């Protein structure tokens, strides 16, 4: 499961260039920012707002793929692109799926970088 969520070759490549400590800081920034976005998505799941969902998906799409969370990056990019075409009653489900994938992806990332977990 971890392999499918996380492209470890990307993280290995980054570590060779930057060293583990610096990559861990990038991961920490992603997890911290991701936690903020998760809080916002939790509210959006209850009261969907197309523009805000699109903005959050854009932020996830832009940052996730760069640090190896390729499935999350692609899913967020797809949601950003398709949000305008989704029916109103499908928005909550779409947000729920993105939220679940973010939680799983961040948990996976934290396995590799426990020092980057918020509060670690």
């Amino acid at each position, binding site marked *: 499961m971890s392999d499918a969520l996380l492209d470890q070759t990307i993280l290995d*490549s*980054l570590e060779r*260039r*930057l060293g583990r400590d*610096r*990559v861990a*800081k*990038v*991961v920490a*920034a*992603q997890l*911290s*920012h991701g936690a903020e976005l998760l809080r916002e998505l939790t509210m959006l799941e209850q009261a969907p707002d197309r523009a805000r969902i699109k*903005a959050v998906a*854009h*932020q996830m*799409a*832009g*940052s*996730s*793929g*760069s*640090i190896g969370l*390729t499935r999350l*990056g692609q899913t967020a*990019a797809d949601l*950003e692109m398709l949000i305008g075409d989704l029916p109103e009653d499908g928005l909550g489900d779409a947000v729920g799926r993105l939220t679940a994938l973010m939680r799983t992806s961040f948990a996976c990332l934290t396995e590799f970088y426990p020092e980057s977990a918020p509060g670690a």
Partner: protein
Amino acid sequence: MTILIVADPPAVAALIAGLLEAAGFGEAIVAHDAVAALALLGVEPRGVPKIAVDLVLMDILMPEIDGIDACGRLKADPRLADLPIIMISALSNAGTLHRAFAAGAVDYIAKPIQADELTARVGSALRRQRALDGRLLEGAASVDPVTGLPTASVLTATLDSLIGHEAAGALVLLGLDGWSDHVTANGPAAADRAARQIADRLAALFGSVGDLLVRLDAGRFALLCRPATPADEAAEGLCRHVTDLGIEGADGRPLTATAVILRLDSLAAGTTGGEAIALAAEKLAAQSGCDPAP
């Protein structure tokens, strides 16, 4: 070398900064939105730039002001018109790219960030800019490449045309105290940044009212005051503003400056511009102990 990264997701900004620094591009400064970037560069609100940068990497989708709009605002500022700006975004449709290039961007990097593409495109943009700067300077030895100020040759020519014709103008020569020690201690890149900071501050305060501000050489600036400009106040102001910048000198204390005034109507008829500068330099050397030779 300093690169400004304007990117919204903090992880992306931190990643780009790390990759550029690791690749040897010098210092990477991060601004998390366009509003902060415009303020840092002294564009909005209009003022003295807080940083001098060689290249900007700008995210397109950002809150309040988007990256393309910010690019246009930077390019509209004459001080930054030549600054290379590379856009970053997951948006890669033709319309977005067209707007970015129309706003003045020189290149485009797609997210997710690929390290090799990032460093190659940044390196390429910097090389192009250096080549352009070099070509411009070949035909314009009158512009100091570091600060963008006129050079000693412009001052000499202007003085040649003024001496004997204008009654009460004055030349204020400003020497940065301990400048050669500053360069030795901090290196040429830091010295160039400091020189730009000083030039930008002095140009904003003294260069826009008809007086001529020039960079005479590495550690000396000169202000050719019109008759209406009180030279003693200008000299005091030049020194005070250098100190106020808080640039750390070689001894760890803020860099200071010394100024001397040479009144043009005190010069003998037939004195050349070069001779006038040399006279002022001797006065400055006597007062501050710095080298009188330009």
